[in-house]
């Protein structure tokens, strides 16, 4: 599970690096002693160029520019960790990156260079970015690149998205209230009818991979990891209520789970209004909502009796679209395949809509082979494409 924004990631890196710094420097010195040429051809594979990373000597050693696939061995000779970007100094398009290179260590960066101008940007952990000398390559076709997205770029879409989620949580509170009311008055048929819209409303918010933290576990957790499975007292939320509604449980045994669901959703709504979403999560969400769908809905893993996995998939698609809509201005200039992604999103939507028959949805296990394969293909294709949205929208520090 991926919870972390970049802040957490670099913390983790530091945890690994810091205690080993001394040892690493010794090893690096040994390596330095052995490599007398800054640029060398290995017996098999692309050529390597040894380049220095430090505030005063960013990009030193790149004296022999050439086109094609090649490896830069980025050696951090400073005393603090640094990120490195290889970019076009004119357009600022990034051709490659290496994040969190520990002091005294060397990191390999493989890129394809073609005709154009390049420079290394060294971004030390606690100091301003430094631009290395510009290097020109006179021929060849260069690899794909994009201008880095910064946290600053992500704040407006994150705020807009957070507002949209807040509205969606209000609606979730209302719909779970209706579900609870039906359970309380003992009308289980009405409760079953009320369960699906409430659950889909929540799923539309894209609570993939702990986006809502521990609250999601209470609201939408499964019995995975619980010692007594579906009978465990810690099995709560939508799926607990679903299990009871579709397994003949009495209304009185469902009152507490239904009340608990309303309480958990209400708490989340109130907390959400108090907190600010980490902008770094936006790109991850665009990708991971549907990863969750592939893992848990297309397999039927989260079906506790309602048979609504494909309805959930459809709601997750809506949730993904909400994220993409807000990221669109950033993606339009960075993601060449955006039109293809949008076309496939539309295709997935009409495919999934075809599995709805009035209020009932086909269960994954009931799909014909052709429909099953088509669904797997369409959703599988989408997560491949959305993975690029996550890497492009990972915020990078450029100054």
């Amino acid at each position, binding site marked *: 599970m991926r919870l972390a924004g970049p802040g957490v990631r670099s913390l983790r890196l530091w945890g690994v690096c810091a205690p080993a710094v001394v040892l690493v420097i010794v090893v690096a010195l040994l390596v330095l002693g052995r490599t007398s040429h800054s640029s060398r051809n290995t017996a*098999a*594979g*692309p050529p390597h160029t040894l380049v220095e990373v430090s505030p005063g000597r960013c990009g030193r050693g790149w004296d022999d520019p050439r086109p094609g*696939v090649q490896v830069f061995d980025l050696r951090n000779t400073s005393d603090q960790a640094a990120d490195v970007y290889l970019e076009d100094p004119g357009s600022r398009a*990034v*051709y*490659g*990156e290496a994040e969190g290179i520990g002091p005294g260590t060397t990191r390999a960066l*493989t*890129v*394809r260079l073609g005709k154009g101008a390049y420079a290394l940007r060294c971004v030390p952990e606690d100091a301003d970015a430094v631009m290395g000398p510009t290097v020109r390559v006179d021929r060849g076709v260069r*690899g*794909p*690149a*994009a201008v*880095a997205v910064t946290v600053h770029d992500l704040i407006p879409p994150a705020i807009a998205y957070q507002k949209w989620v807040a509205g969606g949580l209000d609606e979730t509170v209302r719909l779970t209230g209706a579900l609870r009311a039906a359970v309380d008055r003992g009308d289980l048929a009405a409760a079953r009818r009320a369960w699906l819209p409430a659950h889909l409303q929540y799923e539309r918010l894209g609570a993939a991979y702990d986006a809502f933290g521990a609250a999601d576990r209470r609201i939408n957790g499964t019995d995975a990891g619980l010692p007594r499975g579906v009978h465990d007292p810690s099995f709560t939320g939508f799926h607990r209520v679903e299990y009871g509604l579709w397994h003949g449980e009495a209304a009185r045994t469902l009152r507490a789970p239904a009340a608990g669901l309303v309480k958990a959703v209400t708490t989340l709504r109130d907390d959400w209004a108090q907190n600010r979403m980490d902008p770094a999560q936006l790109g991850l969400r665009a990708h991971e909502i549907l990863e969750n769908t592939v893992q848990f809905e297309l397999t039927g893993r989260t079906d506790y009796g309602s048979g609504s996995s494909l309805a959930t998939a459809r709601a997750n698609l809506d949730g993904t679209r909400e994220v993409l809509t807000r990221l669109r201005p950033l993606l339009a200039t*960075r*993601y060449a395949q955006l039109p293809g992604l949008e076309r*496939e999103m539309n295709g997935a939507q009409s495919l999934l809509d075809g599995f709805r028959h009035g209020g009932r949805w086909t269960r994954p296990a009931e799909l014909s*082979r*052709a429909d099953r*394969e*088509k669904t*797997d*293909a*369409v959703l*599988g*294709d989408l997560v*491949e494409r959305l*993975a*690029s949205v996550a*890497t*492009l929208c*990972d915020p*990078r520090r450029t100054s």
Partner: protein
Amino acid sequence: MTLPDRRRFLRGAALAGAGLATGGAAATGGHPGGQGAPATGLPPFHGDRQLSVPAAPRRASAFVAFDVTVDRRAELAGLLRTLTARARFLTSGGTPDPVGITGPPPDSGVLGGRLPAGALAVTVSVGASLFDERFGLAALRPRRLRPMPAFPDDDLRPDWCHGDLSVHLHADDPDTVLHALRDITRHTRGGMQARWRLDGFSSPPRPSGTPRNLMGFKDGTANPDVTDARLMDRLVWVGRGSGEPGWAAGGTYQVVRLIRMLVEFWDRVSLTEQERIFGRQRESGAPLDGDDEHDTPDYAGDPKGDVIPLDAHIRRANPRTAATESGRILRRAYNYDRGMDSNGNLDMGLLFCCYQQDPVRQFEAIQHRLAGEPLTDYVTPFGGGYFFTLPGVRDAADWYGRGLLG
């Protein structure tokens, strides 16, 4: 056809043997691909024919049948172009093109940063269902391509049969195969989905000669000589003027049969009975009327089956008459092992694959002779399919199926 010299010294080792579904002719002999053999033994990717077909089976293999999930003919062509590009790269090796910050790493990294050249063989074939109404290809269907029928001793499971496309991978090491499979599925996810998949392996000689199957018998000795170009043209490759559509020249028919072996039951059968069922001695592989694996059985001298029973597998499969000579097939079988059955028995057997010019004249004729043989009590064919192996990819501009769709 150019094959490495190493194949040549294997030719002698090739005249008899117990083929489970065939008993065919000549052997794949020793194990050119395994155990320390240089990776350069695999044929080049480009050529008029897919030379992964006659290449000796490597140690590790995956057979995957896919269904095409796109609707339009142009999209199918795009899928085959992508498949070609991946196969070309995976077999030729090199450093995957970096994508910078525009996506996740372009390669799984399972083989390290740089892929070796010549370590993988890829065979791409198409099933009869590709020629249904979806893509308007009905008129171009290879004449003898139809869905695999159920034979009397089969117990076919629909989830393990047929497919629009088949991709067969083989390599010296399992990580090479799995790396390729991940790469291919990743790049084609929107265009095709795996329908069924079975991994196989080829055993080393124990202690010499033809590799053994999981019943303990040397299996597949008598294959036709793949270095004999004229023989291959008579038995394996589809040529021009054979009544097949023009695009099909250079292709061949691939028959795949997934055959479960009831190994626990088999291990409870006396050695004499086992040997009479196959018609060979288990340890040496020699026919029951001979001393050596490569001795030729003399059926004419044993007309009543006193030494080699009339219903022994090798005798039914390959009666060694003039009439059955043109019915031989090129066997490319692997052992498979996939865990347990619901009753706790081991689920293992044979991933049988063979190539021929005409599945009716060759595979099916053998299959009909084998119907009801005593071996059928110990094996259960449960899946597979008939496919047409596409002509080769000629050069960097060519792609699988260009003659069909281009």
